[in-house]
């Protein structure tokens, strides 16, 4: 069993599954514990849009009955999860964090990804807070479990905050410019953006269709791996650890580091923490190679232009034809949509045109240096105060929206899979994250590397923030 487990909601998904199968724990007890954790923390972190206690417990009872009667749906059977409120979940409205969708109808079908989770036996607790239409990095009203005066990041901020506080074991997010990785970094959890196109986005409200990607947020790489296996439709058997198999035996990890772009304009504490993590990795035998990716800035610019134009197109008809409804949008998104409609088509086509070239460029970098993944900080700062949304101490004057996507967006342009995981703390204890960008189609390999690095760094073992707020179902009382 994992270290530092104080309650049922602190268990890993793998340990939880083992406990279900040897009948140490039951899905009903664990779902109750998760609901208790929500009740104890929600007034502080505001991570959930809607929680359906009765339905969650009903599904948990079915899961329990199935397991008792020998039906095993796999690693997420009976595991409580949350779903970002841009995904359709049958029985819930998809309000996308927007007052413009106040009267959104109840969804009658699940998004394809949600369908896979449900078919895999997951217990859907409810919908988590998103930045309006997934366009931004703040996620109001959600707050950061490490310091509720601070933002959790976004746009999947509710999902990351809920996972960090132990209110669910995993949650779905979406990532168009960093919206899985950014809140994962700010909240000290793990987020995985698979390669663009590798998971079906049907039933997920779009932000920018040629960049939109969905993926899991969980507390550890192994939990993320288990969710990824279900999401991609792998067989329902209990998978081994990521990378179990002959291909991983005895081969040193080789990581690239691009100091230009990715190690510039960072808060000193972030730079210090990531450099310290690199030293730890080197001490464990990881080979670190200087691999300057000189087109990273262009990749970020490419993603930025595509993102802004496509988002304006998605919402453009409402902006022009339904001004009263458009007036319900938040001011930031209104400007983004209205201004985005004035970007010339030539600018958009230029960005589309260079995208393949940028991907070829980073493929060349991987090939020339023989690296398994590129390592970079995820955010230039730690979590910002909600009452002072200004980026400071990086040396750059930039908006939060631009600054917090600066290091993540290049990989949306290239479409690579990227794993974000905690790698340190700043001087006041806020999480610092790193990201590992791998090769498309080699998500399993990336997750194997990520798990090894996670074990070397050890930050996944930090206690859940606000863990003292509720016992979450005592292991001593409920599990012998």
């Amino acid at each position, binding site marked *: 069993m994992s270290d530092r487990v104080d309650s049922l909601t602190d268990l890993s998904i793998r340990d939880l599954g083992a406990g279900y199968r040897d009948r140490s724990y039951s899905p009903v007890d664990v779902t109750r514990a998760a609901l208790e954790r929500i009740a104890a923390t929600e007034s502080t972190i505001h991570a959930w849009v809607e929680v359906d206690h009765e339905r969650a417990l009903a599904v948990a009872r079915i899961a329990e009955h199935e397991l008792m009667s020998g039906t095993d749906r796999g690693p997420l059977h009976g595991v409580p999860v949350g779903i970002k409120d841009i995904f359709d979940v049958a029985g819930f409205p998809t309000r996308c964090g927007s007052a413009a969708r106040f009267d959104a109808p109840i969804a009658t079908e699940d998004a394809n990804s949600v369908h896979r989770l449900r078919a895999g036996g997951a217990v859907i607790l409810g919908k988590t807070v998103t930045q309006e239409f997934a366009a931004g990095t703040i996620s109001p009203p959600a707050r950061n479990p490490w310091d509720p005066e601070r933002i959790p990041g976004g746009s999947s901020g509710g999902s990351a905050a809920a996972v960090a506080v132990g209110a669910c074991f995993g949650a779905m997010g979406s990532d168009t410019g960093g919206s899985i990785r950014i809140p994962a970094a700010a909240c000290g959890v793990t987020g995985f953006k698979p*390669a663009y196109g*590798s998971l079906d986005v049907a039933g997920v409200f779009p932000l920018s269709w040629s960049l939109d990607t969905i993926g899991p947020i969980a507390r550890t790489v192994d939990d993320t791996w288990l969710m990824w296996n279900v999401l991609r439709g792998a067989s329902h058997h209990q998978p081994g650890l990521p990378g179990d198999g002959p291909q991983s035996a005895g081969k040193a990890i080789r990581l690239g580091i691009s100091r230009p772009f990715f190690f510039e304009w960072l808060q000193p504490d972030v730079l210090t923490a990531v450099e310290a993590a690199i030293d730890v990795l080197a001490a464990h035998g990881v080979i670190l190679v200087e691999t300057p990716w000189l087109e990273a800035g262009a990749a970020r610019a490419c993603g930025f232009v595509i993102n802004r134009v496509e988002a304006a197109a998605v919402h453009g008809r409402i*902006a022009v034809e339904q001004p009263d409804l458009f007036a319900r949008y938040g001011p930031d998104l209104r400007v983004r949509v209205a201004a985005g409609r004035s970007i*010339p088509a*030539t600018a958009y086509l230029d960005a589309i045109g260079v995208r393949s070239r940028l991907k070829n460029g980073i493929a*060349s970098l991987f090939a020339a240096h023989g690296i398994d993944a590129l390592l970079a900080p995820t955010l230039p700062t730690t979590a910002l105060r909600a009452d002072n949304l200004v980026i400071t101490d990086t040396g750059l004057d930039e*908006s939060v929206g631009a600054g917090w996507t600066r290091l993540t967006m290049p990989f949306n342009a290239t479409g690579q899979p990227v794993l974000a995981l905690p790698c340190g703390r700043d001087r006041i204890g806020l999480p610092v994250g790193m990201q590992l960008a791998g090769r498309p189609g080699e998500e399993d390999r990336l997750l194997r590397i990520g798990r090894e690095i996670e074990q070397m760094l050890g930050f996944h073992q930090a206690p859940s923030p606000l863990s003292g707020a509720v016992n979450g179902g005592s292991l001593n009382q409920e599990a012998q």
Partner: protein
Amino acid sequence: MGKEEDARGMSGPDWAMDLLWRTRQIDPAGDEGAIRRYAEEIAEAQTVLSELRRDDVTEIPLFSASWPEHSPR
């Protein structure tokens, strides 16, 4: 739109004023500071893209999620 705009003309005070005017047609309450910041960010992105060498970009290639199968350049 009434005004022809070239991607390489997306900078300077004229671009910002033009974007402010156009944005306000759709969002009359749009904050001027936010619109100007938007104009700056798009202009910066466009400048970075315009500095890329383009001699090996002869057409608009389709983007594939998979890693390039041919030998990378």
